[in-house]
């Protein structure tokens, strides 16, 4: 009995000491993470301009959002990037990684560097660079298209082509994903490739039947981070197009920012942020289901 009490006291003391050790972190978490999250939830039900005091307005911010044409346009544009931009970028990144990992190709080391370098360019610099690259008259893209007899569009000034221009830029900065895919490819057992080779499988058959299925968890991770990135897509449209022309590049975060910091509608922006959180969570849960996250390969 005495021993039990002694052990219990020691465990309590250990727990207390442990709590004391992590207390600074808990305080930081409470102050800088939990409190802002809780505040934004409260403000999402308020009319709040940041300067004045918040006044409770119930669900009206949420209901007004769905009547707001700019908000609906921003949802549509963001969805476009998720449904078209993310798959294209993923497809390109996966195949580049597979080629770079191929034993048949030599001197791929410097190519890996080439693909990774764009991710080191600061966002603002990259944006200014891409404004120039997308120049209708003298830009690199239209100049190359011109060699093939194609008259390129006015990318960033075109309602139709502004979003594809951003997808091109997204692909250009997929170096981080390539590095992660290359790491994932190291986990694919070499014996499977040997067996496939004995069976006479070619490069594409091996890639489709072995590499890509076994790369599933890595693809899931990259797709999830890309989708979150698209929801947070801000600096690029802010610098390059300011959401134009005609709201063609008004993405979710950009409109959220405008409401919060330019139009004095922090409550409205908070509601937008909560909708974004819920939608992003739903999309990611669906992806987990589709990609059979945490399930063995044979299921």
């Amino acid at each position: 009995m005495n021993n039990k009490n002694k052990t219990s006291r020691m465990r309590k003391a250990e727990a207390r000491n442990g709590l004391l050790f992590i207390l600074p972190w808990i305080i930081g978490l409470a102050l800088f993470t939990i409190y802002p999250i809780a505040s934004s939830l409260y403000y999402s039900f308020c009319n709040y301009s940041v300067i004045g005091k918040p006044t409770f307005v119930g669900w009206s911010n949420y209901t007004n959002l769905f009547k707001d044409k700019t908000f609906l346009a921003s949802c549509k544009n963001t969805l476009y990037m998720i449904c078209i931009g993310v798959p294209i970028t993923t497809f390109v990144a996966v195949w580049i990684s597979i080629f770079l990992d191929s034993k048949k190709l030599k001197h791929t080391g410097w190519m890996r560097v080439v693909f990774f370098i764009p991710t080191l360019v600061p966002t603002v610099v990259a944006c200014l660079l891409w404004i120039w690259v997308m120049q209708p008259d003298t830009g690199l893209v239209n100049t190359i298209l011109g060699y093939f007899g194609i008259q390129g569009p006015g990318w960033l000034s075109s309602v139709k082509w502004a979003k594809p221009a951003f997808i091109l830029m997204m692909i250009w900065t997929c170096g981080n994903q390539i590095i992660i895919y290359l790491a994932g490819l190291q986990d694919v057992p070499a014996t499977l490739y040997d067996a496939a080779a004995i069976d006479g499988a070619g490069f594409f058959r091996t890639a489709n039947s072995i590499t890509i299925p076994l790369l599933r968890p890595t693809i899931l991770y990259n797709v999830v981070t890309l989708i979150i990135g698209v929801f947070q897509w801000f600096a690029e449209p802010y610098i390059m197009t300011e959401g134009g022309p005609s709201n063609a590049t008004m993405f979710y975060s950009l409109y959220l920012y405008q409401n919060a910091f330019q139009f004095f509608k922090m409550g409205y922006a908070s509601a937008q942020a909560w909708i974004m959180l819920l939608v992003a969570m739903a999309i990611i849960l669906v992806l987990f289901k589709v990609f059979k996250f945490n399930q063995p390969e044979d299921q």
Partner: protein
Amino acid sequence: MRRRTISMLTALAMLTMTMSSSVYAETEDAAAAENMKTVHMGDREIQVEVTDPGIKGNFTYWSCFTGDSATWDQERIDAFNEAYADLGIQCDVQFVPDGAGINNGKLLSALAGGTAPDLLITDNPTSAYQYVAEGSFMPLDETLQKINLDVSAFFDGCKDVMYYNDTCYLVPQDTNVIMLYYNPDIATECGLDPENPPTTLDELNAWSDAMTVQEDDGSYSRFGLIPWLDSGNDAFVIPFIFGANPYDKETGKIDLTSDQMMKYMSWVQSFSQKYDPEKIGAFTSGLGGMFSPDHPFMTGKVGMTITGNWFSEALRQYAPDVNYKVCAVPVPEGGRANSTTFGCNVFAIPANTDPEKAELAGLFIKFCEQGSVNEDNFTQWRSIPVIDAAFDDVGLTKDGDPMYLLERQIANSPENGIPALCAVSAELSTQFQTAREQVIYSGADPQETLQALQDTMQSQLDAK
């Protein structure tokens, strides 16, 4: 005898009064002279008036200026600090891009967090006015009275932005006028008389058509005019000059569907229908906008553009060989002929600023309103003073500069103003630009688009 005595007494009284008044004037002049000081501003010496408020201390100042303008502002601050060093007063500056943080949320965060500066200057009067409506800035009437800065003689058009509910909150440092820039060489090449520029909308359209060059493959190598080329963030500039009143302060109503506004939108739409807007976009999506050598006016890809006096400095810097002339913006019937919107850089003191700091900040505002301090600004950017009489002291006026004379003439139009200033001005301006883009790029119906926007913004305004 009696009459002689009376006349002698009267003469004596008049002599005494004349002498005393001249002595008084001399004393006043002497006092003013005593307050004058010579200080350095950049590499020159200037005479400035110094006022002793009887208090000492520092105040913080956020400047919106960047590049050359920031250099000029730093020189101005150094001059102020030199002038007031003996009185123990100092200005501590921080350069905060994007309108002194007004366009990117930095000022909003600082106001909410209690770390706002004691004074700021911004180049976005529209958003500044919304800050006023939100109660973010201090009423300035009392401070202005204390430092003896009389703003009653400021141009009436500037007062649109200065006053909110009859109280002064914002003080313009200087102002700008909007004009039509045209290339006389292109005009001559197209058989137009550059000495007789267009004055009506029909004439402007005729000039634009004459200057536009279409190649055999259907592409355009030159446009006469792209109405929205340099409109940038000044959403209501041309609608206002066309005669529209997007917001009526008296009734509190937003009006985006007036005949004059429709004339503007139809005019803009006629360009997008006549020429493919994406082809026009090929001209307008330049890297550096107005301050870059690839601006279409500088490269000869457009023959005319509507913009402010500051563009002359861009031309001087990036295209000194391009010949240009200016005239008042041509208007349709019912428009504001020979008029402009005033684009001001405005000073504001955030609410809750310590009263003593506010007074010191007020001194800086007063210092900056002096002609000798603004001379470089006026010469370089052709900005104009906010008081007509102050034109006389500007070097460009003394030199008889024809463009500056035209600016003065336009600045004195009684129809000038700053449109659409209300409690939702920032959002109204942004959404109006989007509506204009929808009309240009998506072929949206102007009446329907603007009616929808008007209804939305009016309900938001009413909810304030």
